[in-house]
């Protein structure tokens, strides 16, 4: 969002309270949604639950195209549409609900850094697993991504998306990584998060903006709600030793997401 538009939106946002009929759009849960999109959606849901704001989840096959930035999930609040966790957090902050008010500057810096770590490492690893690992692509991703569309559109769209993701991987230097290297990176990242969490229930001792982001990926990897590709279960076995973090993800799930 540009700076002017941002200021404009926050002004409008501040004017109205949170309505009862706010909706969150994502792809079809059972057949279409992929690991990374599901994780993002869970993060937003967790965040809104932590703020005690009611939200209804609606599944649409074309959610990706409905979104203003092309990414899911996005929320429809009043007469505004906001997509992706970052802008949603700012939007909610403009309405007066924020989880990070109690943090000092250094902690805010650390929070931003850890959020970037999750985005950088875990999200990229998820994308790699989904689109660059041939076994997963063939078995799961192609089938799921193109499921709502008729032939031949389902194949074309899936290949197009795969090509896009592979280009991005190459640009950031992950194109030549093998699966084992990616899993090693994921392990490193999880260890870092585990160290940071220690034995606390939340990363900064009380809920903050960054927690949903981290917990969603952890939860996603630990207990996928849809059939996990074989490689992901390998990743899961890597996560098991990091008990503090996995425990935190578990409790958070139980607390926050009740349907």
């Amino acid at each position, binding site marked *: *969002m*540009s*700076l002017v538009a941002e200021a404009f939106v926050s002004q409008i946002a501040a004017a109205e309270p949170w309505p009862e009929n706010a909706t969150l759009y994502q792809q079809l849960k059972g057949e279409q949604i992929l690991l990374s999109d599901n994780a993002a959606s869970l993060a937003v849901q967790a965040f809104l639950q932590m703020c005690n704001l009611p939200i209804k989840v609606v599944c649409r096959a074309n959610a990706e195209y409905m979104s203003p930035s*092309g990414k899911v999930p996005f929320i429809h609040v009043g007469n505004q549409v906001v997509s992706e966790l970052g802008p949603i957090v700012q939007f909610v902050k403009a309405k007066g609900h924020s989880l990070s008010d109690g943090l000092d*500057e*250094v902690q*805010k*810096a*650390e929070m*931003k*850094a*850890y959020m*970037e*770590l999750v*985005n*950088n*490492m875990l999200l990229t690893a998820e994308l790699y697993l989904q689109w660059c690992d041939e076994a997963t692509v063939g078995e799961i991703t192609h089938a799921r991504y193109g499921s709502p569309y008729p032939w031949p559109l389902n194949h074309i769209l899936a290949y197009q998306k795969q090509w896009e993701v592979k*280009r*991005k991987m190459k*640009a*950031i*230097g992950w194109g030549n990584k093998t699966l084992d290297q990616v899993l090693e990176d994921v392990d*490193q*990242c999880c*260890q*870092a*998060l585990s*160290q*940071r969490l*220690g034995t606390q229930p939340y990363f900064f001792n009380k809920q903050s903006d960054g927690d949903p982001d981290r917990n969603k990926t952890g939860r996603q990897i630990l207990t996928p709600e849809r059939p996990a590709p074989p490689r992901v279960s390998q990743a899961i076995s890597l996560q098991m030793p990091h008990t503090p973090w996995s425990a935190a993800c578990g409790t958070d799930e139980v607390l926050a997401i009740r349907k």
Partner: protein
Amino acid sequence: MAAPMELYCWSGGWGLPSVDLDSLAVLTYARFTGAPLKVHKITNPWQSPSGTLPALRTSHGEVISVPHKIITHLRKEKYNADYDLSARQGADTLAFMSLLEEKLLPVLIHTFWVDTKNYVEVTRKWYAEAIPFPLNFFLPGRMQRQFMERLQLLCGEHSPENEEELEKELYQEARECLTLLSQRLGSQKFFFGDAPASLDAFVFGYLALLLQAKLPSGKLQAHLRGLQNLCAYCTHILSLYFPWDGADVPLARQTPVGPETEEEPYRRRNQILSVLAGLAAMVGYALLSGIVSIQRATPARAPSTQSLSIAEEDEDE
């Protein structure tokens, strides 16, 4: 150890030991840990063992070119700057490096390679002067294309109309990132106390490039100069770990003839080669088009070929 480790990296400029971000970070880490590296400062990436810079040739002959892997290898060889860090500080390192990569790297690429004024006056000028003939004609352009593509993919698909907005957004995020770094550093000497760690090497790489290069449009530079503790941090590391590289700069300025005399034999050779090539082209054209023909055993042919060629020309006209 069989042979000492050799590091190939971009040579220095603008008051820095190296003008490339990755090379600078690796060099700084090596200096922090006192690793006995043989450093080759070159300006021709094709001379490096892996084709890209920086590249490390280990004592076993293996070549590593990804900066993170170079640092991992140095750690394995017991040159570890992160030895004293607690596990939590190690986690912080990882997190802050991701922050740098996400927020500062796009802006650095944009400042040096995409912003037209900076690119033409500073970056391309330095690379074109430093890289030897004939690579200096196409290599800077190729590097720019690679960086621009990388930037585009990093920032997602944005239509060209809101390129200015994208720029503003990028710089806004970078400014926030710098402020965060400043807050995290506080008044400490290094990020984790009194001894430098790998995070310091990377942060120094980013900040030094932004601070030292004389950029005509340096919007981020102005913001960075406002953050006193980061500036002091940079100058401290530069003076402590790279004291003699600062002396190289005035030398280069005072003797601009210096690099030229080095190229003298190449220049002479290039001149002779180009004159020869020109002569050969002219003579070849003259022979082929019949303006000049070599008189051999049949002199009678010469005028007839000439008249034939003239007749052809008349026909064409």
